[in-house]
């Protein structure tokens, strides 16, 4: 069987690429190591927050945004300082992405049936000067239906393309090797893993029952990052952030193992900026874990008082939701790998959201009624319910 293209990884990036390619009539083989239950990868678990610039939602909330302002914010946050090397393409991608987020992105997503919650969130508020880190204005657009709705929009397209014979989707197919000949991709080799009953996000077995080789002149790697691989995280941990945390919890499922990155590098692909990672400092343990060391991130409002492990309040601008990386650095330089919020019932009622589709059943379930109830109850709610049973 011949394929025009092989896509490695059925997360959001792989699904998007597959759908776009097959739209043109090319035949795509979509491989993923996980069982079919995990289609969509991390995106399913996500809160579905999307960065948009000068959207109708922003305007309705009275926010004046522009491409220039977003450019200022992006570059102030990125701090690209390897322009003639590792950042050469990265910065150009950033510029292209800003154009996309200001123009095409919202219309394209809406044409795929994706809608947005009307209150735009304000993430990464910065706290430095105008050209420093952070969003000058709220830009975090929560998809109505959160992560699962984004996945659904693309999965639907793929399912149709499977029916049309354009896409062949093989779960439990783990790629172990990229085949390159004379500087050109020619195929992939890998292992067929035993069938698994693992539910979405659960760790699945790695027992190999067979191997496979597929040939194709075009290969797309969309295998995700290294977030579940603590060894790799510690290995890549940059000195500027202090020592690497001894204790960590995981914000991503086990399949985010970084393995394919290493395989690609072995084949000659170049990995850049490996010292740059985006880990959060407001993790709480999930009392009913799905994946290994399962943690949930609190998306904090700005009022909680933040103390280090020895009880010293952090200096400005290490306030909740201002500067994730700066706060991570500050915490790690205390010599401890944890910190504390102290807050009141009133603050928790209004300000605590948990980042993930599961933790927000009203937004995920697209229930305006449930959302209104939540908003109303926000003031009456008991504090246990915010980290309640889901």
């Amino acid at each position, binding site marked *: 069987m011949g394929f025009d293209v092989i896509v490695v990884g059925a*997360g959001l990036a792989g699904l*998007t*690429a597959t759908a*776009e*390619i097959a739209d043109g009539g*090319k035949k795509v083989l979509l491989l993923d190591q996980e069982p079919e239950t995990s289609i969509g990868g991390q995106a399913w678990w996500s809160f579905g*927050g999307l960065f948009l610039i000068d959207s109708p939602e922003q305007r309705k*909330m009275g926010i004046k945004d522009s491409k220039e302002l977003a450019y200022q914010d992006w570059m102030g*946050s990125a701090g690209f300082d390897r322009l003639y090397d590792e950042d050469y*393409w*990265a910065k*150009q*991608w*950033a510029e292209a*992405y800003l154009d996309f*987020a200001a123009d095409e992105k919202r219309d394209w*997503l809406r044409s795929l049936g994706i809608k947005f919650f009307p*209150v735009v*969130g*304000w993430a*990464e508020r910065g*706290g430095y000067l105008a050209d420093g880190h952070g969003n000058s204005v*709220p830009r975090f657009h929560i998809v109505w239906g959160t*992560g699962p709705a984004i996945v659904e929009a693309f999965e639907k397209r793929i399912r149709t393309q499977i029916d049309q014979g354009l896409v062949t989707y093989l779960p439990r197919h783990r790629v172990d090797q990229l085949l390159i000949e004379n500087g050109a*991709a020619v195929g992939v080799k890998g292992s067929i893993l035993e069938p698994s009953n693992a539910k979405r996000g659960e760790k699945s077995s790695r027992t190999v029952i067979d191997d496979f080789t597929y040939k194709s002149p075009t290969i797309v*790697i969309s295998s995700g*990052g290294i977030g*579940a691989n603590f060894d790799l995280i510690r290995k890549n941990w940059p000195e500027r952030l202090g020592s690497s945390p001894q204790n*960590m*919890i*995981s*914000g991503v499922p086990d399949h985010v193992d970084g393995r394919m990155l290493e395989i*690609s590098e072995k*084949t*000659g*692909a170049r*990995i*850049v900026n490996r010292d*740059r990672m985006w880990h959060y*400092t*407001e993790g*709480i343990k999930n009392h009913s874990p799905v994946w290994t060391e399962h943690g*949930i991130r*609190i998306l904090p*409002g*700005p*009022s909680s*008082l933040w103390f280090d492990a*020895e*009880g010293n*309040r952090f200096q400005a601008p290490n306030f909740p939701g201002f500067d994730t990386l700066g706060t*991570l650095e500050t*915490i790690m330089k205390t010599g401890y790998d944890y910190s*504390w919020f*102290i*807050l*009141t019932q009133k603050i928790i009622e*209004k*300000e605590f959201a948990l980042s993930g589709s599961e933790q927000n059943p009203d937004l995920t379930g697209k229930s305006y009624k449930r959302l209104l109830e939540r908003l109303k109850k926000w003031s009456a709610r008991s504090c246990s319910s915010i*980290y309640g049973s889901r």
Partner: protein
Amino acid sequence: MDQGEDFVVANNLDDLVNKMNELVDNSLLNKDEIKKQIEARDRELDNLFTKDLQVTALRGSRFYRGDRLIRTAKPHKILDPKNGPLIAVKLNIISRKTLGGLQTNLSGQVLNSDGCVIKGLYAAGETAGFGGGGVHGYRALEGSFLGGCLFTGKIVGENIRTS
């Protein structure tokens, strides 16, 4: 356990700090020192202007309708019992995103260490640093990860479709 194990709740600060120390099984936190800092912060609320930049930020953010509605509590004194019991949360480092990755050109083609294209090899999503091997640089503005997957997936798809 029904409640999060990283949370403690108490009606007064002394009890709260005791419980915090118990939770991490040490005695690093000193009640008097914490009380001094929170009392100092609370005194800053008597006026609508203040030197405490966090309090200034709270007042500022409430000029945004969305924050006022569902995100930023009306500034109040932490130690005033009428604002409800006190809560402390132990915050752990939680892994998430990889900002670097495979270096790709604007078509999403993967490059080798000489900066040359590996023919036929593309990368999209987090594995490509959400574009180019690190579209965020050091810091992200958020909401740009899913967006980066969508954008790189789309660009790669379009390039392959038309090639």
